């Protein structure tokens, strides 16, 4: 049998498989960051009350959320807390900090764990109450909450020397009514 028959067989198989998979849903493209509107709330970055960190730059925040930093300056291991997929707060973080979609986010952490560069994958919690409770209990935890969901059980970290209650704060999330 001539060799080109085998190659032709592979090409035909490829076409068949591509057609069979064509009904599969396309992956969601990345969400570009948008400027905040007047109705948006700020998204506070919160840590455990015992964490001495007061301020983080956006670059530091980026590294922490990507898992490129695994320890706080006090030696405590960083535990990243994410809200469940689909939550507006999570979408805002994916857009503003990660600049990734859900698929890229999952691949990033799977790859990081696989290469050993990421020590621990994020902890995902469903509600702001859950996030608060987790961060309250875990000294190395860092997460995010709407400013209106923050209470005294967690500590707000300033971003680029700005608190969520100041102008030009960089992290915003659509109001809950927009869910």
């Amino acid at each position: 049998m001539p060799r080109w028959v085998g190659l032709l067989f592979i090409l035909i198989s490829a076409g068949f498989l591509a057609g069979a998979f064509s009904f599969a849903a396309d992956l969601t493209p990345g969400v570009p960051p948008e400027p905040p509107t007047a109705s948006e709330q700020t998204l506070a970055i919160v840590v455990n009350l015992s964490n001495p960190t007061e301020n983080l730059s956006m670059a530091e925040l980026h590294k922490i959320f990507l898992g490129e930093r695994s320890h706080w300056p006090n030696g405590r291991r960083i535990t990243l807390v994410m809200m469940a997929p689909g939550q507006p707060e999570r979408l805002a973080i994916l857009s503003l900090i990660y600049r990734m979609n859900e698929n890229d986010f999952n691949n990033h952490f799977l790859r990081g764990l696989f290469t050993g560069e990421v020590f621990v994958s994020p902890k995902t919690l469903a509600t702001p109450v859950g996030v608060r409770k987790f961060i309250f209990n875990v000294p190395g935890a860092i997460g995010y909450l709407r400013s209106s969901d923050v209470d005294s059980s967690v500590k707000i970290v300033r971003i680029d020397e700005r608190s969520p209650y100041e102008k030009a704060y960089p992290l915003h999330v659509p109001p809950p009514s927009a869910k």
Partner: protein
Amino acid sequence: MNFSVLQLNKGVLLVNANRSRLLTQVSLFVLGVLAVAPVVRAQHPGEAPVSDKETMQLLLKRISLLESQVKKVDQLEARVRELEAAKSHIAPAEITAVPAQPSVASETESESAGERTMSERMDVSKTLLRIRGFGDTTLHGDTQKGDNTAFTLGQLDLFVTSDISEKFKFLSEIVFEGGPDNIYGITRGTNNAFGVDVERFLVQYSYNDYLNVEAGRWHTAIGYYNTAFHHSTWFQTTTDRPFLFDFEDRGGILPVHTVGVSASGLIPSGRLGLHYVAEVGNGRASRSPITQEPVQNVVDDQAHKAFNLAIFARPDAIRGLQVGFSAYRDLLVPANSPKIGETILAAHAVFVRPQFEWLNEALVVRHSVFGTSQVFNTPGFYTQISKQFRSYRPYFRYQYVNSSDKEPVFPDVRLRQGPSVGLRYDASESVALKLQYDYTVLRGQPAINALALQVGFTF
């Protein structure tokens, strides 16, 4: 201790409520007595009537009763403080065990499940083992004489991790793959028979961002590809690894695996983002020809150890850029031949973002035969570029390696160079379909045209 946080909180609230109610009662009573007393004195400046005395005694009794109740509340408060202190001593153990969720990108749990996780992690008898799998199946054909178009089961890779503690972690890759092996052109093993390789097997200690120590078997930090893709074809864009980074049992020329100890971490360098990796291990087996395992997992065929040092930068200014180099040094002692000094110098510049990838690596393997002036330099490089368009990612790769026909360690390699073009289609988040064409030029042999269709997946 079985005292739960919830019970404790309820207890605190109950005690506080009782106490405040009692204090209010006492305060009102005392105020009432003080308010009434002057009136009583004004109306009865002399000796008080008997009925008033009885009233006073009754009130004093009630005061003493209330005081005893307040004392009990104080005792309860002290007990609550004790329990809170005990709880704060327990907390670090809970906290130590909480953060680990390694085998998946992220895990969604309800809050109650989160609490359950905490309590589970208190139980040291649980292993916290996580398993993630990778695999692939390929249909491959080429124009090389003697080759037949065939379906090929690729590596079935079980990626196993376990969080031992806050600082320690276990990681391994257990790979099932079909034979035979190809070691420097010599086949070993039985056709189509599956075997098991423990490709990575290490315990990691993470002291801080500047010092991480690993012990076991890992992928040597030579260049970029070897530590970026490991044994998962699903992660890599192409159907196969660049020839330079092929595994030892697939004809590769590098000591891809090392058994030993490694240290890695950040170098304080601000926005430059410098990292280091320092490794010492057994190196590769140097018997020639090698008919057994090329990685020295258990015994070393000589006392000399292999060293590798890698430095790379990930500058903040250009996200996705990594530039680095590595230097590897070992001593090979082939049987009935002079010793061979092995030096591998590698450099890489890669730019990787979710939608774009550009990999460039070059290296030279230098073998110097002891007691002679013979030095064999084997240079090689590859460049690979790809761009994602929705679910499709077309890619191009060109690779080159050129070794002497008299190369003492891998004489079969000679010259290999040529382009590869292909298309990766992500059918879902976990399944990728790839079609790749390769054109490979060989020295002294006809060029090879090859086509491969692969399904790679993770599970």
